[in-house]
């Protein structure tokens, strides 16, 4: 059997194991191990299995992942998200649809200290949904606005999916974070605009011009409080990374320590919350690092099979404009994102499509990272998997899933508009990285 055939058969077996609900990390390691064994010899596969797992787990560059995860969970358990919502609520709560817009704003700011999309959706959702219901917002708008807003953290730095993309493609994490800033702000604006449009067209979605009137003194107090904390932590951690003071791991550690220190000083953190945050951090770290270990073994097989090179060669001979090929690849991402979670999606697909998009079609690697992040934000709110939808379902159990799904259309359209704008004006993602 030639290597390409082995690669294709292995991929089919891998997909079959996924259907049977084998953990994705183990499926990748298992198929990768047997594939490498077939294409080389069992001794080589044994060496790959042990050495790749150890070198993944003990890798200094990869230690950035648990640090940013820890930063996010400290912020989550200390209730920073709730306090941010209070600020956004006081700023935008007075206009029609303002509470839903406040949700997007709070999610975007929380995304600056938390790279986890479900954690953002859960933390903001638990306070925003009851508040919107109090003011008779329709459940579809209330729940969908939180689910969509939760995804903003995937684009806005520090973002764990962008870290994984950077590590997979060996691109600068600092530049990837920079590439995420403007698309993140744009997407936040588009989400708010989508809310404004749907509420304008159907005022019953947000019936009263409700919520509190902005009080300048209160706003100033909030500005001095949690918002200033978030700004300082972001400036120190991600800012230090942009300025070249820190490595990504150091930025993550400084961010985590910063959040911990601030929340202790403010009295938001106690021992129980600290342990809960550690629990969530180790759980997510184990999941992601085993996934990376499995993906590394699987990618050995994919390289040996020469599939990425064959695809790149084939694409270069296609009589199609580059943007059509790109469009097809983005559609594949959207489709896969509907059934596979964010991190494995990036780990599985990027080694295959990155050479095609960047080397063959000539797109900017940071732009590609940013647009994948936007696509993933769509995937987390699209059925059937749509992880944020299920998080919201967990927060507001009496809202039927269909109702949540029915409200996401405007947000999906907003995200598609964001993608189109990024294709038309790649500078949205490439401008900031080009400055450093």
């Amino acid at each position, binding site marked *: 059997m030639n290597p390409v055939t082995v690669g294709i058969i292995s991929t089919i077996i891998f997909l079959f194991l996924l259907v*049977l609900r084998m953990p994705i990390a*183990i499926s990748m390691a298992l198929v990768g191990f047997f594939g490498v064994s077939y294409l080389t010899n069992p001794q080589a596969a044994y060496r790959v299995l042990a050495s790749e797992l150890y070198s993944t787990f003990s890798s200094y560059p990869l230690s950035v992942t648990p640090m940013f995860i820890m930063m996010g969970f400290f912020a989550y358990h200390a209730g920073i998200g709730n306090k941010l919502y209070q600020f956004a609520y006081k700023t935008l709560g007075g206009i029609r649809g303002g509470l839903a817009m406040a949700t997007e704003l709070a999610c975007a700011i929380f995304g600056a200290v938390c790279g986890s999309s479900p954690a953002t959706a859960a933390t903001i959702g638990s306070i925003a949904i009851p508040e919107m219901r109090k003011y008779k917002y329709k459940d579809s708008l209330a729940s969908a606005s939180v689910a969509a807003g939760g995804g903003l953290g995937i684009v806005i730095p520090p973002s764990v999916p962008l870290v994984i993309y950077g590590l997979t493609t060996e691109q600068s994490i600092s530049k990837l974070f920079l590439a995420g800033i403007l698309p993140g702000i744009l997407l936040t604006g588009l989400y708010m605009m989508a809310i404004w449009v749907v509420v304008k067209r159907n005022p019953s979605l947000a019936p009263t011009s409700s919520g509190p009137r902005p009080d300048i003194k209160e706003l100033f107090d909030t500005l001095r409080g949690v918002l200033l904390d978030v700004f300082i932590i972001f400036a120190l951690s991600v800012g230090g990374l942009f300025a070249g003071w820190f490595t990504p791991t150091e930025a993550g550690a400084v961010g985590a320590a910063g959040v911990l220190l601030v929340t202790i000083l403010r009295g938001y953190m106690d021992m129980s919350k600290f342990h809960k945050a550690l629990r969530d951090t180790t759980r997510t770290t184990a999941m992601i690092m085993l996934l990376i270990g499995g993906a590394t073994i699987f990618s050995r097989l994919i390289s040996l099979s020469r599939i990425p090179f064959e695809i790149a060669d084939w694409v270069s001979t296609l009589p199609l404009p580059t943007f059509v090929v790109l469009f097809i690849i983005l559609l594949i991402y959207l489709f896969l994102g509907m059934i596979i979670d964010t991190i494995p999606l990036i780990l599985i697909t990027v080694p295959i499509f990155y050479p095609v998009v960047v080397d063959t079609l000539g797109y900017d690697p940071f732009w590609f990272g940013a647009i994948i992040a936007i696509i993933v934000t769509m995937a987390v709110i699209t059925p059937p998997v749509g992880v944020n939808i299920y998080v919201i379902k967990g927060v507001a159990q009496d809202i039927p899933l269909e109702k949540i799904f029915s409200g996401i259309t405007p947000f999906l359209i907003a995200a598609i508009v964001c993608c189109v704008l990024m294709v038309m004006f790649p500078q949205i993602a490439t401008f900031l990285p080009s400055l450093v």
Partner: protein
Amino acid sequence: MKNIIYKFSNFLDYIAGYALVLVMLLVVANVVLRAFGVPIMGTVEFVGLLTAIAVGMSLAHCATSGGHIAVSLFFSKMSKGLQQITSILVNTVVFIFLWVIVWRLWIYAVTLRDTGQISLTMGISFYPFVMAIAVGFAIYSLVVLVKIADNFKGGVEE
């Protein structure tokens, strides 16, 4: 038996959590001291090795709470009986493969010990960390074994 395995994974997870806190403190201390021209020697090595401990020690606890993500979309459409049979088969394959990993990691650790592989700056031996990861995988496999026993009793993980 299930209780003992789950409690032990829980204990290992505590070690993992504090290993990560140690990484955070070490890195921050190094950043601060570096600013004064006295960086902590071997920080990169310590961080790598502590992260290895953290990941190894948290694998099993992650499995107890279904943290190793899988695609449930198609599985959830199966009948209860088929779900049970599939779970038994899949978990058995996972259990066997985890032991292959444990076996190869142990052999790798012994090779590193016998060839005297140490880190460049601090001269720390690598093999105990590889063995710690092997232990982590071994406990993870025991969690899977508990799940197989549950599957035989008719339990299927949600």
